[in-house]
């Protein structure tokens, strides 16, 4: 998956604990079991369809199998006896059988595709609905790109397997068994040849494929490697040129290129073997058939027509074996996909609404951190320790600290993106874990560090922020835009509110995106505003304007604002200084300047704030 420029969620500084999507690799049988389990569960509603497909396939295959028998009859009853009328009669029968065969085959395709596509749709839906219940931890563990692949590509692979299975899995056994039966019916005496040829063919194919599979897996890794080099070069193109390192990069690439070529050649050597080996087995078997058949014909035990039919059946049986091997190749690939999908479906979200939630009538917005601590699961360094903090309702509190100090995590605790590992976070005296999640979120207006917009129009993006059941007029939208100091650029464009937003909002600058995100949060007039360094993309004047407008609107609301900018911090009712996950200072700007060293250093190193770093 190519890297996109769209940022993902709140930016936490995550330690590398069992993350990066590297789940443990289960054994082969485990993944096939998962594949079967998935298939069984989601194919269930299509049982009837598949039964119809199976029936049609059976008829179609039997019809195909019947043709050589009729042909044998033509030869034995018609040609050998010089009975031309019989020949034509039997020709008519063959024609009829052919018509039946194609009708059934087309029917099987019709129903088969409905079943397979329906399966795909259901599985995709199940995965999507499940993933949307995930909390931040689960999403972070897999990563959005991986989840996307699992929902789309992996489902597609299994869908393809199902489609091929619906055709081959039914046809192949019938062909082989039916073929064997028909062949035996023609002449049982030659059947021992089948016992020799079929296993030889199956084993030869299996041996080749057994060698190919690990090579293919290796090739996939090498391809990933070469793609990584390419991605590196593209993202670092300025640095490469600045340091004039093109020759170094070229040779890095040449190495990866050569490695890929070597692996592909190795795979090709084995693949080249498949067709000649298969055709040789088939041809040698035909030769043997004619020899031994001839002996039996001479002894009067068999007719010539039968031999010809036997040859035809033989071909069909071997073809069926080949088809089955193709399926065997698809199976491991689909198993891997099944295992990835099962991994997602079996993950239970950590953070859910409690069974019996407390539902306060209204939220005042008093936030209390009571000796809260948080560490990522499996990490030894805690992100937050012994945080005790009280934010009175209707006040503005600024949080400052260096990168990785835990500021954003503080906000995440309030929203329940993560739950505290010890201590508690309370809103209006109620532990957030006891509140209904939806109600909790509807009382919070969150503006994360990087404004994330959805594709649609500006108006649609703003309406996104509406509280449940709130109906918004255009005036209200413009009002929100005015507060967020975004009305200037929205009005400047001819489309105004109906201006299109590209995916991820990339057709707007960072500052504009930020302002639209602020407008979105403002629209619902929440009880609690959370700004995660959200004003950093704005220059100082706009920042001040927005905050002034916000103050008017949010007189009763609690505002918690993470910031790096001293101008913001200075006006807050309370400033909290965080360092290494602990609170090292709390109070007003003036008092902190006096007694908190970290804070005074911070103030000293402050920005000339003319500008938009992005």
């Amino acid at each position, binding site marked *: 998956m*190519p890297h996109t420029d*769209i*940022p*993902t*969620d709140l930016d936490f500084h995550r330690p590398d604990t069992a993350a990066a999507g590297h789940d443990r690799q289960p054994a082969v049988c485990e993944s096939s079991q998962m594949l079967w389990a998935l298939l069984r569960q989601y194919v269930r509603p299509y049982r009837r369809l598949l039964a119809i497909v199976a029936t049609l396939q059976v008829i179609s295959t039997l019809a195909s199998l019947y043709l050589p028998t009729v*042909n044998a009859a*033509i*030869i034995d009853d018609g*040609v050998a006896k010089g*009975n031309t009328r019989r020949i034509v009669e*039997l020709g008519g029968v063959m*024609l009829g059988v052919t018509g039946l065969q194609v009708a059934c085959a087309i029917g099987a*395709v019709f129903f088969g*595709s409905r079943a397979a*596509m329906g399966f*795909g*749709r259901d599985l995709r839906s199940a995965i*999507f*609905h499940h*993933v*949307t219940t995930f909390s*931040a931890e689960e999403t972070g563990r897999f990563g*959005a790109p991986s989840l*996307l692949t699992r929902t*789309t590509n992996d489902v597609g692979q299994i869908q393809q397997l199902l*489609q091929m299975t619906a055709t081959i899995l039914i046809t192949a056994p019938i062909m082989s068994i039916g073929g064997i039966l028909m062949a035996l019916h023609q002449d049982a005496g030659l059947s021992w040849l089948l016992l020799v040829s079929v296993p030889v063919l199956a084993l030869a194919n299996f041996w080749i494929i057994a060698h190919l599979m690990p090579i293919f897996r290796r090739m996939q890794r090498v391809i990933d490697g*070469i793609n990584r080099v390419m991605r*590196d070069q*593209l993202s670092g193109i*300025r*640095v490469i040129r*600045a340091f*004039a390192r093109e020759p170094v990069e*070229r040779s890095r690439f040449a190495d990866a*290129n050569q490695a890929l*070529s070597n692996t592909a050649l190795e795979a*090709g050597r084995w693949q*080249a073997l498949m067709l*000649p080996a298969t*055709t040789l087995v088939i041809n*040698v078997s035909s030769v043997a058939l004619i020899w031994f058949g001839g002996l039996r014909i*001479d002894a009067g035990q068999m007719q010539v027509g039968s*031999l*010809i039919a036997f040859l035809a059946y033989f*071909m069909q049986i071997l073809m069926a074996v080949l088809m089955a091997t193709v399926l065997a190749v698809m199976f491991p690939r689909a198993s891997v996909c099944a295992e990835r999908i099962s991994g997602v479906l079996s993950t239970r979200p950590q953070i859910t609404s409690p069974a019996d939630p407390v539902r306060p009538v209204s939220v005042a917005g008093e936030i209390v951190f009571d000796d809260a601590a948080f560490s990522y699961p499996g990490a030894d360094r805690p992100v937050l320790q012994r945080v005790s903090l009280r934010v009175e309702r209707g006040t503005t509190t600024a949080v400052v600290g*260096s*990168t990785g100090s835990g500021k954003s995590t503080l906000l995440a605790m309030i*929203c329940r993106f993560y739950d505290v590992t010890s201590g508690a976070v309370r809103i209006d005296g109620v532990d957030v874990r006891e509140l209904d999640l939806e109600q909790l*979120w509807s009382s919070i207006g969150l503006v994360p560090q990087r404004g*994330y917009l*959805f594709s649609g129009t500006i108006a649609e993006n703003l309406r996104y922020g509406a509280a449940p059941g709130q109906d918004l007029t255009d005036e209200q939208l413009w009002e929100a835009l005015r507060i967020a100091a975004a009305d200037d650029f929205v009005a400047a464009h001819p489309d105004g509110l109906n201006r299109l937003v590209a*995916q991820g909002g990339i*057709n707007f600058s960072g500052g504009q995106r930020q302002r639209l995100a602020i407008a979105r949060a403002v629209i619902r007039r929440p009880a609690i505003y959370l700004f995660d360094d959200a004003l950093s993309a704005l220059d100082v004047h706009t920042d001040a304007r927005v905050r002034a407008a916000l103050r008017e609107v949010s007189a009763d609301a609690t505002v918690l604002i993470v910031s790096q900018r001293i*101008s913001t911090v200075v006006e807050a009712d309370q400033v909290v200084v965080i360092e290494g996950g602990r609170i090292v200072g709390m109070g007003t700007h003036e008092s902190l300047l006096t007694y908190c060293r970290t804070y005074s250093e911070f103030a000293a*190193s*402050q920005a*000339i*704030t003319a*500008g*938009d770093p992005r």
Partner: protein
Amino acid sequence: MTGHVLRRSGIPAPVERTRDFRGSALRLLKRLVPQRTLAISVVLLGMGGIAIGVIGPRILGHATDLLFNGVIGRELPAGLTKEQAVAAARARGDTAFADLLSGMNVVPGQGVDFAAVARTLALALGLYLLAAVLVWLQAQLLNITVQRTMVTLRAEVEDKLHRLPLSYFDSRQRGEVLSRVTNDIDNIQGSVSLTISQLLTSVLTVFAVLVMMLTISPLLALLTIVTVPLSLWVTRWITRRSQPLFVAQWRNTGRLAAHIEETYSGFTIVKTFGHREAAQRRFDELNDEVYRSSIGAQFFSGLVGPTTMFIGNLSYVAVAVVGGLQVASGQITLGSIQAFIQYVRQFNQPLSQVAGMYNTLQSGIASAERVFELLDADEQSPDPGPTLEISSGRVEFERVNFSYLPDTPVIDELSLVAEPGSTVAIVGPTGAGKTTCVNLLMRFYDVDSGRISIDGVDISTVSRQSVRASIGMVLQDTWLFGGTIYDNIAYGRPDASEPEVIAAAKAAHVDRFVHTLPDGYDTRVDDDGGAISAGEKQLITIARAVLARPKVLVLDEATSAVDTRTELLIQQAMAELRRDRTCFIIAHRLSTIRDADLILVMDAGRIIERGTHQELMSRHGRYWEMTQV
């Protein structure tokens, strides 16, 4: 930032479908030309292998004839000649039998001639073995040919990347370019190698089989050939019906994937704004649309198999009946019919394979088109030879004008002088042109008019490499490659000795945190994060620039991602380094700028104020405004 400028101008995204199938296909084929000896051997071997393999059924047919002759012959009285037996049958009134006899090679009274059968079968066996070896060799050589071509193609593309101007990358989404150099090339390799080998085999087989069929019975061959246009017509009809359905399916799938990606990426917003249900509803809508368009597409494409099989069976029936009649009337032998039936199957199989290949081929050629587009893109202007020699490091901009797009000037009559060893701070709002100045100085882009000179030498007259070698750069975006910390620092100057690298690391305060890591300098820097924080990565890039010992240093907002404590340390180190160097700093932190020798306040591409911090503060102008909290 520059990327935003170019992308927002609405440059259209490239089209997905093939625009010129034949042209691109031919161009792709032409790439095989350097491997022509191999390619020709492949074709010759293929022809040989298939020709031999195709004769096989004929020979087996001959063996069957021998058997049949034996069976019939044994019934006839011994001692007669064939003609006598025929005449006797005609006299009996058994004209059909007489006709049959006349077409056979019967010796009355004699059973099956097993010696002849054995010889025939041995010949067939030998030929089959030979054919298998030839086909195997051919497949091997084809694989080698394809691989060599792909290696060359990939190397060419990568090489091209280094010659493309930066504007190419800035005007496109990175994912799109990446897709071309990875996914598209992978697709070419997969689809083209598959289809070339199958196409080759199929075409050769069809011709060889056709020839054999004609030698047996022109009438029957005609009957079989008639089915070819029939299959082709049916396949085309199916493809034409399925094409719009496929387009719809692809479009709907794309929309679904986009919605899924949006929801997953912005999932915090989706949840906290209570939009989970709305997202789910929309998903269900889109999912259903995909379902509806895909059953149609799948059905039609799934029809190809059964219909070609049907047509194949039709010719099977025709051959069985007409052939049977012909044998009965003595025109051809029974064994020939058996061979013919096998040929019919061999004839129809390649046709259905080719039909199925069409979509794969389309997709492969589409990818090839995109790759060729990249290879055809305009390169940056060639680099004149002379190397830049810096003595003092005096940088001058003289009336420079520049714009990324024709009508939007970004730099407007900019003139400035940075004396050797001085520090120049550039401040200003977004879009003022600060990063652009760096782009021009590093010759990532070239000026439209005016000139930039270092030590009096116009930088456009010397090689880009030497300009860049003389300027050290630390960007806001930290880029480290997947190597060790040591390697990344040494990237600045590969021939640096270890003490020099360590010294650079110490100067940038990298040394301290390196010692807290278990592997020290050998810790691998994973591009996607890992053990090193963003601030620490920034320090490594600074160490890299320090090692390069440039005379001119450019810091583009480099310190904004580092926490204040570390930043103070860097500033101390930087002050050291700045002593003998001309330094351009684009930053926002008051402390950085306060110490500069010259501050330039930019807006809309022009310098509106210049002077030291004290001077500008006393002027109560724009700079003073910006510092007011």
